[in-house]
């Protein structure tokens, strides 16, 4: 989803026009997954598939969050551990640990997540912009948020930044 769409959705919610504010159309779908207690999401169009944890071949001379490469039906796919990427402590992989393979601009990458949760619709009324706070590291990778019931807010990852970001 482009940033314009998000802005428009946020603007609609805040608009005085009741009709606009009440608009709750579906903008797309996200796949949600858990990392620790937090629920994250990735827009479904970037997701290629979900595969179980498998042996990862280490590759030297790469940052520690790149765990290595795996063979997905004769395609070599690099694997990023989201936990390490976001600076969270590593935990042992369990039977629920999954690899979600993504494809963005022909760059294929797999990400390791604690567990996959759900696929759900994105409603215009639920979208929130991220707070303008440059101190929070993970903000760089969050494009926007989806409010759920109670505290259940999902952070939607900006795949472009996740994959394209230049190493400083």
């Amino acid at each position, binding site marked *: 989803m482009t940033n314009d769409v998000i802005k428009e959705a946020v603007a609609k919610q805040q608009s005085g026009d009741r009709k606009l504010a009440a608009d709750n159309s579906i903008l797309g779908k996200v796949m949600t997954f858990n990392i620790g207690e937090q629920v994250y999401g990735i827009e479904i169009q970037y997701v290629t598939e979900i595969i179980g944890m498998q042996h990862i071949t280490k*590759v*030297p001379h790469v940052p520690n969050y790149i765990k290595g*490469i795996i063979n997905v039906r*004769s395609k*070599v796919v690099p694997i990023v551990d989201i936990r390490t990427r976001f600076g969270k402590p590593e935990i042992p992989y369990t039977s629920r640990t999954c690899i979600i393979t993504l494809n963005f601009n022909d760059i294929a990458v797999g990400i390791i997540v604690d567990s996959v949760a759900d696929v759900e619709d994105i409603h215009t009324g639920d979208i929130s912009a991220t707070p303008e706070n440059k101190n929070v590291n993970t903000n760089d990778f969050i494009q926007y948020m989806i409010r759920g019931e109670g505290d259940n807010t999902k952070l939607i990852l900006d795949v472009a930044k996740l994959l394209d970001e230049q190493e400083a």
Partner: protein
Amino acid sequence: MAKIEPGMEAMLDMYFFETNSLLEQLDEILLRTEQANAFESDDIKEIFRIMHTIKGSSAMMGFDNLSVLAHKAEDMFFVIRENPDVITDVSFVYDLVFQVSDSYKAQIEAIQNNIGGEYEQMDFGELTDKLIKARDKLNSEASGEAAPADAAAPAAGSGSAPAPAGGSDKVSVRVYFEDGCQMENLRAFLLINTIREECSFLEFYPEDVETNAESSKEIVEHGFLITFSASDDRDYILKQIETALNVQSYEVVTGEVAKPAAAEPAAEAPKAEIPPEPAQQLQTEKPKPAPAKAPEKPKAPTDQSIEKAQAAVASAQQAANGGSAQKQSLISVNLAKLDALHDIVGEIITTESMVISNPDLEGLELESFNKAARDLKKLTGELQDTVMSIRMVPLAGVFQKMNRIVRDMRKKLNKDVDFVMEGEDTEVDKSIVDSLQDPIMHLVRNCMDHGIEDDVQDRIYAGKPEKGTLTLSAQNASGEVIITISDDGAGIDPEKTMNKARRMGLLTKPESEYTEKEIQNLILLPGFSTNEQVTEFSGRGVGMDVVKANVEKCNGSIIIDSKKGVGTSFIIKIPLTLAIIDGMEITVGGLVFTVPISTIRESFKVEPEQILRDTGGNEMIMIRGVCYPILRMHEKFGIDTEVTNLEDGILLLVETDNKSVCIFADRLIGEQQVVVKPFPKYLARYNIKGEGLSGCTIMGDGSISLIIDTNTLIG
């Protein structure tokens, strides 16, 4: 500046391919005939045909300047073709045609580099003027020569001479286009345009094909009737008609097919004799003498004309069939498709071994399964070989270009040099051929410019033949192709090289420590050029290092072998193909690495007393009197392993580019043919490739092995 016409982009690729191959063909003919110093009539026809095709396709693509240029060249060759004896100054013609060919290549390259954008339209005015002058000159010579030679011969003057009455039969041809090819009228019009220049007399029916779309109906029903003068090169015209696009068939109708009669359906057209045409009607352009074979003979009498026409048709068909059979046995395929095919075959082979050595099958009695598996293995092996061979192209194309370069330089530098080509039919992978062209060209130029002595006297003093020799050879040797470019010139002067390197500040150790080989290798460094004078061909100091880089890009290596006063050889070694290599699998910790077998000299166990340690604690080993450094893989790549004692693991002596190192691994697994896959794009930003790994491969069990790049591992 000009732009490519919209809608034409789709055809550009085809145009470039076709025109470039035609130009290569042209160069080849020119070089061949120049050596023989004579044009065969076949060659002239071929050149004429090439120019003609280029003219047509350039005009179609909207490249007017190219079309005009080809047209003028064609005009010139027209005169030559009609009067093969006319060329008195052969080299002048050659230079001109080579210029045309070069201009073409330059313009095409300019267009190719700016597809979709604007390209610079070159001005060939000067060249076309030259061509026109040449044509006129040849023309006047021709008429001067031909007229006195045989009074009975049709005068080949400039247009006013009446054609011989006896040779003025008309030949009518009814052309049928393929069913449903659409726009028959325009196709007919194109056809007319193609043969117009060949005919001193030309009529066709329906006449309004260009403007009247309705005429296609007529053409579909009754065919397209073309009548031309029989004194023209009939075989040629018939061949043109036959090979024209979408022409299904044609028949030669010899009969009373004057304009009104042609309106009737084909079946009714009476097969009568053509009345001799009054000579005055033939006053179009310059009448041509009949085909070269019998210019002085008048055409066969009319009652034989049917027979003759049939013979002509037969021979034309034969020629066309011969030609088309050859053409049809070759197709051009997009390289991307071949790459895809290649990838799939690689995957099939991997998957096959996954199936055959599947752990689920362990311990089972599978007699017929094993038999089937063996058959499958044999077939996939054949499949792989075939796919590999598809990608192989001979080096001849590259070699031919060098021939051309040598020719030009021979003239410009005024050096008498024999160019010898050997093994040009050696085949290598297409992608390698492409990246080899520049390095070879550079080396050939260097040999011509710097290698061969400027002064013939120097050669005579040195006891060498006056004529220099430049050899370009290629040969296959155990999975590698070895290309050698050697001259018998002055060789590399170590002293000069040293002086130069010192001046440029390229020396990295005391001068006395440099071996002869190392001194020779200095010329491969960036910024090095020994020639004091920068010439048109070489000496800018960008070059040898680029040559080296290009060769290394295709996993090759370059060796210089030179002796002062005797000559220089550049030896390029490249693998046959990049995609599949024979590898030795080794393990380090939990990781599997593949070492290209071509780089492994030996592998061995080591005893503790063989190990030497220098003051810095670096380990070395002495093998047959030579000391090699030891590189511990687990340290290099930061891998945890239990095998850290040198005597517990295994050492592999690997060598590349005259550099050697012993790599230390846990153990050997075995030999395997592996399909090289590049690292994923996402990892491209990290410097993996610069650190001793060239790619990865998927092994039989589905796991991934990393391929060692011996070059960067040592360097």
